[in-house]
């Protein structure tokens, strides 16, 4: 059946890409002396002392392909090396900081997509009318705003001027106390969800208050991306014959737009949302640094500044895998929506 072949082919295509990402990271490693690379294989602080012993163990001064083999076997075992910026193995650090970034994305992704599509459609319907120029102008402005500067400005207004309305960071002091207290059950480490599960509304509210600014920053930055694609695909769809036919069938404008035009216009938007996740990740790095929202992005920046190479490379590998998987999911979604692909 065509769809099954399509899925399997997409899965097979996944492997070379992942290998590619790993190769890039390995290539970057070659910039460093064996000593620095040894830090990759350290599991605990005391191991730092007998570095040369580690160099022999992982043949760090042998030809490249041998090192690659050992390095890969380590990576597959989950040992991405030791991050000196947070004094814990890279894999554990990844797990510790992931929930924060996830929480950020849970709110940003739906918001960006929903508003992006809505704006795209409205500005396409009212092409070249004031609404169109305004929305397009705003979207382009959003796209041109440097994420970190927008973050600083928002902080200046909502944290400085309105003194503490929407604070940076992840949780206020008292909420922090509650979360770290024994009674609080941390299922997912995503505070909004844990708060709900533990029925602690105050924690949820506090987490939300901290989320408002970073989420707005990320959304505004990536809005133009979705909106522009939506607008041009909507414009194209509106000129198609079947839209003309839908009107000739006597359907009212709302049904023509929502039922016939929107679904066809969504297809290109879906294919592109794979890139949205990538640009959100990039945006998150900057936003988390500005709001020192202790997520993956914040951690990667700290590691980069302190030249903590294993951490940065572990982060890049993780992000690469996440994005490749989301692209796969987006492809499958695309096949599901468009019957022409599904039935081959």
């Amino acid at each position: 059946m065509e769809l099954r072949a399509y899925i399997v082919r997409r899965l097979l295509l996944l492997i070379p890409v992942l290998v590619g990402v790993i190769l890039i990271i390995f290539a970057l490693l070659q910039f460093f002396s064996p000593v620095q690379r040894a830090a990759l294989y350290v599991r605990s602080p005391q191991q730092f002392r007998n570095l040369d012993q580690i160099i022999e163990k992982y043949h760090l001064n042998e030809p490249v392909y041998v090192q690659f083999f050992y390095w890969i076997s380590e990576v597959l075992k989950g040992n991405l090396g030791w991050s000196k910026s947070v004094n814990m193995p890279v894999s554990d650090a990844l797990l510790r900081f992931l929930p924060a970034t996830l929480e950020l994305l849970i709110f940003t992704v739906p918001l960006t997509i929903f508003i992006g599509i809505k704006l795209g459609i409205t500005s396409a319907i009212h092409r070249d009318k004031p609404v169109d120029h305004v929305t397009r102008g705003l979207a382009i402005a959003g796209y041109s705003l440097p994420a970190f500067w927008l973050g600083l400005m928002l902080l200046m207004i909502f944290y400085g001027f309105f003194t503490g309305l929407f604070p940076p960071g992840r949780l206020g002091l008292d909420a922090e106390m509650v979360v770290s207290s024994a009674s609080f059950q941390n299922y997912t480490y995503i505070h909004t969800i844990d708060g709900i599960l533990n029925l602690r509304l105050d924690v949820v509210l506090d987490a939300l208050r901290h989320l408002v600014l970073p989420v707005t920053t990320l959304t505004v930055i990536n809005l133009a991306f979705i909106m522009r694609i939506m607008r041009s695909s909507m414009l194209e769809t509106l000129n198609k014959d079947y839209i003309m036919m839908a009107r000739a069938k006597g359907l009212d404008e709302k049904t023509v737009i929502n039922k016939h035009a929107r679904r066809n216009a969504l297809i290109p938007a879906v294919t592109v949302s794979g890139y949205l996740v990538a640009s959100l990740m990039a945006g998150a790095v900057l936003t988390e640094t500005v709001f020192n929202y202790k997520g993956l992005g914040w951690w990667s920046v700290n590691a980069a500044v302190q030249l903590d190479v294993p951490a940065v490379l572990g982060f890049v590998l993780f992000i690469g895998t996440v994005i490749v998987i989301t692209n796969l999911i987006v492809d499958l979604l695309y096949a599901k929506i468009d019957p022409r692909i599904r039935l081959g």
Partner: protein
Amino acid sequence: MAKKSDALVQIRDLVVRFYTYEGIVKALSGINLEIQREETLGVVGETGCGKSVTAFSIIALPPPPGRIERGEVLLNTNGSTIDILKLPRERLQDIRGHKISMILQEPSAALNPLFTIGDQIAEVLIRHRSETFIKMALEELERDIEAAEKSGSSFRAWVYRTYAGIYRSLLKNRRSLKARVASRIPFLRRYRRKLDAVLRKEVVGLLREMRIANPEGVFDLYPHELSGGMQQRAVIAMALACRPKLLIADEPTTSLDVTVQAQILDLIRDLKEEFGSSVLYITHNLGVVAEICDRVAVMYAGQICEVAEVKELFKRPLHPYTRALFEAIPRPGRGFVSIKGTVPNLVNPPPGCRFHPRCPRATKICSQEAPRMVKAGRDHLVACYHYR
């Protein structure tokens, strides 16, 4: 000149202009045309003469960036006469697809690729004839309720009664809140199944009338899974679903092969008899006109130059352009006669009669003032000073 006649549709002094970057294209400048009941009126002309624009303007849908500047389109149905162009949006939509419907040249483009054929045809039925189908669904529900009560399962009876309640509210008002809410709730959503079943029966019947093989199967297919001819039949089914008074066909067979074109032409002719509707058939192929049309209007550069009964027109073409068109028909052994010059650019069309730069009989008056439509025989009108 347009007296109160029993014509189905009267187009009076229709003017349409296109606002493009290169300037204002005067697509239609004063079209007067009448379509009688149960008649196939052909509109013939070369590319760019405005025949499609006329067709689309009848249901007030001039292709963008066109705009209807002036004119009336009078629809005479069961006693009352209304001007379609002046209708409010709501009433206009009631007419489109119900009283007047359309089929386009590219069948594959006229069908939405993401919906099944059955969906797209049922959509027209629900839009215009929802009462008849909801009543049918209600009758079937009544029968189910009795059967359920007889067999003693009161729960099923209760369920069917709630469905019946939703249908009754739908009857009262098409966008009843109750029905819209019900279609959101997973369990209650199943009330639509009864209506869909009724619609399915109707649509499959329609597809069978279109001589489509295996109509039951085609109902669930997507447009890209059908051949050109089948797609066009589905579009025709969609157009004739509500027994329209007038079917506008914009070159429906031009993109099809000759053998398939013959099948579609036969289909349109037979359905016209059976459904008793008029057809406005737009084409540039004189052979098709001779085969299917009763009366013919010849258009050139946004003006109608001649209207006549088909046999009369082929026997005695009066307007120089019509005569040139007939000359250009390739006949063996006679080589090809072409009309000198090219189609005028409609941003600043030639003054007076727009054919005068290419007309062998043009005189001074032709270039000053556009000739008016003159009666030149029984059911034969021509707009030319020197017709003979």
